[in-house]
């Protein structure tokens, strides 16, 4: 068997080893690369960034730990942006396993922001006054439609059981009309439901943050202006971090993803060289 024929049958353990090295090396040595910004992310960032202080924004956290590496950096950066710009985020969760993630991250980002705010003499953020997490309730579609009328019909209390009316920030929030936009972080099909009901029926502006595998599904919505921005996968998260000038996990992760993509392309190339040479041999 010639070397070219061997190209066609590389041991998959060798592929696994190279993939592991391509992922680990940039993460260990914290290698970063320049992130180019795409227009769907730019418009998403601009839409949030230009909102006046005190504006309410609804953030739907609809993912679990499996999709966390792609969507959590978006959530983290977005929350930080909200705190910095004085926006008032309300978190809602449609995936039961996403609730603890939304709570942990919310607490972490608030703490981080408050530490920075104290150092710089800015206002700190307080739960209930500046941000709220209303948690998870079953009912997906019904809830998305119902919130268009009154949020309290489905969420009488926040994730800890505190009645919504006792939270100062929630007093004047009743339905989609009280939010400037909805930023939905989606690992599944809730994004479609938000577009089909919350946007089509109640007219709320929507930005979707999706996993790379499901982001292509949102392009028809983007072109039809049913959503005003789109963040796709880790690349989308890295672009958002770059626009926020806060490079973090996604920016670092993109170097690892870059290396793996190049590796896959090389393997595809090698596999095809082997394929054509062995085919020519067979024919002759």
């Amino acid at each position, binding site marked *: 068997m010639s070397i070219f024929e061997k190209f066609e049958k590389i041991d*998959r353990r060798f*592929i*696994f080893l190279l*993939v*592991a090295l391509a992922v680990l090396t940039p993460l260990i040595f914290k290698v970063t*690369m*320049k*992130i*180019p910004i*795409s*227009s769907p992310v730019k418009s998403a960032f601009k839409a949030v960034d230009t909102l006046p202080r005190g504006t309410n924004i609804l953030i739907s956290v609809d993912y679990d*730990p*499996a999709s*966390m*590496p792609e969507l959590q950096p978006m959530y983290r950066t977005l929350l930080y942006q909200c705190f910095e710009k004085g926006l008032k985020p309300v978190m809602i969760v449609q995936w039961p*396993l996403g*609730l*603890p*993630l939304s*709570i*942990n991250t919310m*607490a972490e980002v608030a703490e981080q922001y408050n530490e920075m705010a104290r150092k710089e003499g800015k206002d700190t953020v307080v739960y209930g006054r500046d941000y709220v997490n209303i948690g998870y309730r*079953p*009912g*997906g*579609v*019904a*809830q998305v*439609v*119902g919130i268009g*009328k009154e949020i309290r019909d489905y969420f009488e209390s926040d*994730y*800890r*059981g505190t009645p919504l009316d006792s939270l100062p920030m929630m007093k004047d929030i009743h339905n989609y009309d009280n939010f400037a936009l909805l930023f939905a972080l989606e690992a599944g099909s809730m994004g479609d439901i938000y577009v089909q009901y919350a946007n089509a029926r109640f007219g709320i502006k929507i930005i979707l943050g999706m996993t*790379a595998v499901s982001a*292509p*599904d949102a*392009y*028809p919505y*983007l072109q039809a202006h049913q959503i005003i921005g789109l963040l*796709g996968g880790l*690349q989308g998260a*890295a672009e958002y971090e770059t626009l926020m000038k806060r490079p973090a996990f996604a920016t670092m992760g993109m*170097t690892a*993803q*870059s*290396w*793996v*993509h*190049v*590796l*896959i*392309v090389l*393997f*595809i190339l*090698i*596999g*095809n060289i082997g*394929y*054509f040479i062995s085919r020519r041999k067979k024919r002759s």
Partner: protein
Amino acid sequence: MRREIPLAITFITALIMIVSFCIPHAPFGSMQDVSLKWYSIIAGFTMLLGVDSLIHMHSVKIKRKKEGWVYSLVLILGFALFVISGIIGGIRFGSAMDIRSSFMYLYTYMIVPLQSTMFALLSFFIASAAYRAFRARNMDATLLLITAVLVMLGRVPVGYQMWHSFPAVAEWIMAVPQMAAKRGILIGVSLGSLAVSLRIMLGIERSYLS
């Protein structure tokens, strides 16, 4: 009558939902509100059904010592652990979701690493599968291969370093040919869903009754 009554209920409920969606004013609006709340409550109870079915299935497996019964035992013990830690969290901190509770500790240090690991394995299999599957065997496969390579390089920063127009090419593929195909599929799926819904509503499709 055993068939006619469920068919009538389906038809009337569907009709109410359609009318109330198009005319969200009294009396239809309030009918829709009630239906949506019922839906939410029923969705909550389906979770209980799911738990019941899961526990029953795995209990039987353990009782009969079927192959892999040890995994079922781990599942039931894990389930009990989470329920107990949730209750303790609720009593000690007022909510299982309090970040100091043992429930959150278990979630952060068990569920998160387990699920992340499962998903992370995918990158290894995708790399291996791409190497095996992307062969330029014919025109269609070649087109797919070229598009995949362009998108793969255009969606990562290294592609931008290689050629500054790679991201623009990838974005064009996503926003034009990909989107056109997706929209076609979406319209087809929607028309199909509409047809099936009508068939169910009119009692032509009755498989849900059996």
